[in-house]
């Protein structure tokens, strides 16, 4: 069996508050698995249950096929990289890394060899005799990694490991983490609230919200075929447009936007739980980069909008526009494109390719662009 970790209907409750509800998934050997969600969604609690710092209220945690639900952390063959690293300040880098093997009472020669190897992997050989306080944030981060990896754990658990670093270093460490993971071929379970981080690094992502795992899949899967309105809104930016099914069959459907306009979608761009019966309320997700703009009405399906804001972002230009029914949408156009009609208050036409829309069940709580509404973003984070 290729699964290193299996969560079997795990539930964690504090008093009447349910932190994690019915988490039920497997993590494969050598996989880079991310748990992504806004703070308080239960991702860290789930990680702590795998590490052994918390015990599930019900359900089982299996490690290499063995039920470890009630086994203390020091008897589990997983290691954690803590959020603020939690390096031992009174020990040198080498002694920090040697802590695990020495606790396991390995032969001192073997300990030395492993520590040396691991210092090479994280490229810190010349810092072996420094104290953690004498290292930079990125170096401390790598010591924390080495200290965990030196034990050859079944899985490495990382709790927001990059949160304390600044942007440039964070991007460099993302690449470094991937490199190290390929080199040691150990399962990484990575907790983050940063979707960019999760999308960049992970083989699979579990998106969590309010204690529930909303969706598990590859980055492309989750981005292109979200299974819930929460996932659609949380991952990347999206325009969520409420619509009603006009007519539908096994080949596809045509939908009437709320406030005017019509769109035709193929059935393989419709989420599994959507019933394409006339009158059904659905949401059409259109990513900002999938919308095209033109000054005149194009031949196919389109929506008219009024430009409210234009933000130059270097490689791209973000255009915020308002539909006839006052719904805000965002469009991403290339920074190279010369579009003279893009001026505030000018009218433009939005169109899309047949592959662009994805249809979800129900209406969103906030219609339109998910990244322009400050309140809804704050509510998420």
């Amino acid at each position: 069996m290729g699964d290193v970790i299996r969560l079997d209907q795990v539930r964690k409750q504090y008093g009447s508050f349910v932190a994690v509800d019915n988490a039920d998934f497997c993590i494969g050997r050598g996989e880079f698995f991310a748990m992504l969600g806004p703070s308080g969604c239960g991702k860290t609690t789930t990680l702590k249950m795998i590490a052994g710092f918390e015990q599930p209220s019900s359900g089982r945690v299996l490690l290499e096929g063995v039920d470890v639900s009630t086994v203390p952390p020091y008897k589990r063959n997983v290691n954690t990289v803590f959020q603020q690293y939690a390096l031992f300040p009174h020990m040198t880098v080498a002694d920090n890394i040697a802590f695990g093997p020495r606790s396991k009472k390995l032969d001192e020669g073997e300990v030395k060899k492993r520590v040396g190897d691991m210092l090479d992997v994280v490229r810190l050989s010349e810092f072996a005799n420094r104290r953690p306080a004498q290292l930079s944030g990125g170096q401390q981060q790598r010591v924390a990694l080495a200290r965990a990896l030196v034990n050859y754990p079944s899985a490495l658990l990382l709790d927001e490991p990059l949160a304390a670093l600044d942007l440039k270093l964070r991007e460099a460490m993302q690449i470094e983490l991937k490199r190290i993971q390929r080199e040691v071929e150990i399962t990484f379970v990575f907790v983050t609230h940063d979707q960019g981080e999760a999308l960049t690094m992970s083989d699979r992502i579990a998106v969590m919200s309010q204690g529930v795992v909303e969706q598990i899949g590859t980055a492309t899967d989750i981005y292109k075929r979200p299974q819930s309105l929460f996932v659609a809104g949380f991952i990347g930016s999206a325009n969520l447009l409420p619509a009603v099914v006009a007519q539908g069959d096994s080949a596809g459907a045509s939908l009437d936007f709320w406030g005017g306009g019509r769109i035709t979608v193929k059935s393989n761009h419709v989420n599994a739980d959507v019933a394409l019966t006339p009158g059904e309320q659905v949401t059409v997700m259109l990513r900002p980069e999938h919308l095209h703009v033109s000054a005149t009405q194009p031949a196919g399906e389109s929506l008219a909008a009024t430009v409210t804001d234009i933000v130059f972002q270097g490689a791209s230009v973000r255009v915020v526009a308002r539909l006839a029914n006052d719904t805000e949408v965002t469009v991403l156009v290339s920074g190279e494109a010369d579009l003279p009609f893009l001026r505030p208050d000018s009218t433009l036409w939005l169109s899309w390719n047949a592959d662009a829309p994805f249809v979800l069940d129900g209406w969103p709580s906030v219609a339109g662009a998910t990244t322009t509404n400050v309140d809804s973003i704050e509510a998420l984070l």
Partner: protein
Amino acid sequence: MNASARVATVASRPERVGLGVMFALSFGAIALGAGWVTGPSAAVVAAAMLASVIGLVLVAFVGGLETRRALAPYGLLKPGILWLSLFFLAPLWSMVVMSLSSKESRFDFFPSFTWEWDNYRVALTDFRPQFLRSFGYAAIATLLTILIGFPLAYVIAFRGGKYRNILLGLVVIPFFTSYLIRTLAWGNILADEGPVVSIIDNLGLTGAFESLSVMDNGKLLNTPAAVIGGLTYNFLPFMVLPIYVSLEKIDPRLVDAAMDLYSSASAAFRKIVVPLALPGIFAGSLLVFIPAAGDFVNAQFLGNPQTTMVGNSIQDQFLRQLNYPVASAMSFVLMFIITIAVLVYTKFMGTEDLA
């Protein structure tokens, strides 16, 4: 070199001016305090000290921002230097002189300086038991304060929660009562008719305590145990507070990390918590041991003639026998031994966090 060139040279070396004035002030204060100069010449010295301060102020005033910046630390040091010179260094010098003095005739009221090294021989031979007792009692009391204080500080730091400050306040509250009153109160608590002895009696443990030589003849008061107990009680807060400070700085996640790295809770305590608390234990030990070794209050009120500590003997020699030379010599020996003990302790126990 003409005068203006000299002023320019001085102004270009402001830190030398600051240092010079500081030493001049310190030396003047010692000279005045130790009585090297008296009468009119004392007035001259005082005037010279005042002049040097005014000179310094002038240099700072004439010199630019750089000069003032260079002189500032010396200016800030001056009140402390003056205070210590006048009330610590000068008396210390007087004591050195006194410890080597003797009365040339038994009718002299005041001893005079005669290189009387015999005072030190008397201090070290006649009062050897008191010295040994002092350091023994102080060492045991230090050990006891660690044993009692560490768990206390640990609970306050890690389990105190929102009651932390109240609990710390409770540790300090005994200080609101005079040291003497607290020690006298201990006399009542340990008295033959007092609660402790009667509880031990009623439990039938008197024999056991006697065999541990904690009690003597059914008594608790006026035993070495009472003196050590008093020392432990009186100095406990000096151990608890520094240990608390070092424990409080420990990130609890370090313990999590140790347990994640295959250490049981007790191993994590041994390998993480104790080493990180060492600076606190070290500081606390110094704060307890040094005053305990020189203490005379506990031995006086809780002990008996066989438990006198060196502090009692010094007090006795100074105030009752009026034997100032031997008392001074004993004070010096005490200071010397404590300094050596602290240096050795620092060498073996010291951490770089605590110089």
